[in-house]
């Protein structure tokens, strides 16, 4: 059952970037992790409120670990979104953090040429 995700529409620190009212994805992977989160929420793996709380915590932890100059330079909203998603997925026992790490390393080792 789809739940109305008010934080996706409104402002606040956890709201996704928008331009002219529309969602903005700077790269395809950002849209994929956006879509995965929506899909998992629709399946009931977590609620939007749980996701939002987790996202806020990831953003806060990331900011605490950095000075203000670094924060401006390295900020990526969807990297934090991805981190929140990984936290929830591993917390729910859907997959292990070590599996994710291993898969990312395996994908990085592919021959170059056709990254999407």
């Amino acid at each position, binding site marked *: 059952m789809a739940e109305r995700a008010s934080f*996706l529409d409104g402002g606040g620190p956890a709201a996704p970037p928008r331009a002219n009212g*529309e*969602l*903005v*994805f*700077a*790269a*395809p*992977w*950002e*849209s*994929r*992790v*956006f*879509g*995965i989160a*929506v*899909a*998992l929420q*629709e*399946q009931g*793996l977590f609620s939007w409120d749980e996701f939002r709380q987790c996202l806020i915590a990831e953003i806060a932890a990331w900011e605490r670990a950095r000075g203000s100059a670094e924060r401006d330079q*390295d900020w*990526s909203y*969807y*990297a934090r979104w*991805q981190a929140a*998603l*990984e936290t929830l*997925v591993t917390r729910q026992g*859907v*997959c292990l953090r070590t*599996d*994710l*790490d291993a*898969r*990312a390393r395996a*994908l*990085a080792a592919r021959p*170059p*040429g*056709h*990254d*999407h």
Partner: protein
Amino acid sequence: MSHHHDHTHDDDPARAEALRAEALETLLREKGIVQPEVIDAIVQRYAQDIGPMNGARVVARAWSDPAYKTRLLADGTAAIAELGFGGAQGEHIVVVENTDRVHNVVVCTLCSCYPWPVLGLPPTWYKEPAYRSRVVREPRQVLAEMGLTLDRRVEIRVWDSSSEVRYLVLPQRPAGTEPLDETELAGWVTRDSMIGVGLPQAPVTERADG
């Protein structure tokens, strides 16, 4: 470090994030928890409006400004950057022009390389093996199935994208649009017309269901 692929540094944070995203999606797919088509549909539902607007502005500018069109066909990446659009990966965008004699269509036979800075997210069918393989072998038939029947005398050129070169079709300006300004023209430019599987269309000004 390889010398011929210096854009794939392992310490590139954008690439590292893209790989983590792909790792998560592939693991969830293998466990049967998410399906790629479902994610496609969600993303389109939320964001179908983000993409083609950039490309539409490029095409409308080319239709309105002959000097811009010349620059666009000579160096697509640079001319598109004039309007503030560009890719994080630095791939080249080559613009191919439709004429009375030539119709261009874009595919990526190996995967789904796509000029996303101007076209946004690729549609699901673009990534499907059926389109990727068939449009090369029988483009006229595939286009007809997608609703675009071309005169037999029009030559069809199929452009295969890669991670280095992405193609954007410059469709022909429709007859009867002479009085329109650039902003109005942009409303005629559809995503499909910039992939080459459709033609520009008069914008829908009102929707029945709001």
